[in-house]
């Protein structure tokens, strides 16, 4: 068995040992041979294979469509039957209207000091959820920054589609008129979050919309002196930290059964509701910064 003279005639085992030992000569000859065989066949078959693939693809696409329609219809059917079996809509005797919602409504005012019971629920009774929710927003804006924030290399890109401030006069005039009102309304909604409908999320969105309007009307040169990447990051982070520490304090005292020292105030006053007012303000600022951040990342790739 002289494989060196005729590499095609060696035994399987020998070839295996050679392969394991990494001796290249045999391997490469064998590989070359196999590869030429394969590419020859491949060229011949390529056309027919492509045809077949196309046909299979069109069939599988049809099957996929039929299957997904079928699954959806079955799914809707099952869920409709489930809904049919569920308790009646609008009935006060439903299982959901139990002692939990009763205590929120009847003792919410004295236990939290807030008249808006939904605010009391999300910022006091179930505040951990809301903390998670604020963190979700923060996460989203960081993700958008990772994806869309331009680095120094593609700053030339920025020059091409940069946001110049040559907007129409009507837009500028209207923005000058509307912007203060929008922001004022947003602040009102945030500050009255615990005594009337509203709160940090709603008010923050309104302020964010105002900032977007201002930026769209006057271009980014003007707004950049106040709202740039650094200031927005610092504001968001510090508001989140205030939220974090105040709620951390209340969770810590609650978990260890210590009386909290924060006064509840008279229900109905602006300065009432314990931690709810500062938390609403923090949430509002975070949401406003986030909304403005989304807008400017999507349009300009930077704040």
């Amino acid at each position, binding site marked *: 068995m002289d494989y060196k003279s005729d590499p095609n005639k060696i035994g399987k085992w020998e070839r295996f040992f050679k392969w394991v030992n990494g001796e290249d000569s045999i391997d490469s000859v064998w590989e070359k041979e196999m*590869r030429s065989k394969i590419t020859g066949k491949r060229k011949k078959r390529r056309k027919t294979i492509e045809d077949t693939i196309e046909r299979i693809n069109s069939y599988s696409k049809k099957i996929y*469509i039929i299957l*997904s*329609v079928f*699954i*959806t*219809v079955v*799914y*809707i059917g099952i*869920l*409709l039957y*489930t*809904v*049919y079996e*569920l308790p*009646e*809509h*609008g*009935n*006060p005797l*439903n299982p*959901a*209207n139990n002692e*939990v*919602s*009763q205590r*929120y*409504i*009847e003792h*919410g*005012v004295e236990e939290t000091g807030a*008249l*808006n*019971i*939904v605010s009391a*629920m*999300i910022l006091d009774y*179930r505040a951990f*959820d*809301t903390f998670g*929710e*604020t963190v*979700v*927003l923060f*996460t*989203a*804006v960081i*993700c*958008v920054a990772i*994806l*869309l924030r331009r680095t120094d290399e593609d700053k030339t890109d920025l020059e091409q589609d940069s946001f110049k401030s040559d907007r129409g006069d009507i837009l500028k005039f209207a923005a000058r008129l509307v912007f203060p009102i929008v922001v004022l309304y947003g602040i009102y909604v945030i500050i009255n979050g615990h*005594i*009337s*409908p509203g709160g940090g*999320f709603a008010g923050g969105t309104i302020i964010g919309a105002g900032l977007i309007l201002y930026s769209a009307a006057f271009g980014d040169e003007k707004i950049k002196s106040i709202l740039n990447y650094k200031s927005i990051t610092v504001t968001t982070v510090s508001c989140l930290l205030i939220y974090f520490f105040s709620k951390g304090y209340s969770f810590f005292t609650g978990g260890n059964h210590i009386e909290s020292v924060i006064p509840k105030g*008279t*229900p*109905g006053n602006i300065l009432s509701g314990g931690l709810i007012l500062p938390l609403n303000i923090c949430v509002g600022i975070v949401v406003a910064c986030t909304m403005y951040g*989304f807008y400017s990342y*999507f349009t300009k790739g930077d704040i």
Partner: protein
Amino acid sequence: MIKLLTINHFEAAAVILFGIGFMNMLLQDNLIKKFIGLNIMDTAIYLYLVSYGYIEGHMAPIAEAGKAALAEEFINPVPSGLVLTGIVVSVSVTAFSLALIQRLYKKYGTLSFDEVLRKLRSGEANTYDSDS
């Protein structure tokens, strides 16, 4: 059947909307439409939740100062709170997915899922050939 149409009609509508969103997600090729489908799904769940929080003839849960609030006067506040949380989550996810799509569009110049997949595959096949 009659109960579905007359009493639980909000919930039935929510379930059907959920199905529409689901089908949109499965069948749309355009990525933005796919994500709109997912959004419809989420919104359907919020409709479901809010409609179960409602109690016939009761008010929104804002108490009056100096007056004892009674559970018989107000709707259930819990679903409203849950929906608030859900909406914020859905906004975040939507923003994130739109940013991803914008990034993908800048790289491949198309919004079609199949087209991107095809371009990616052919690109990969090229590197493979030059490799071996």
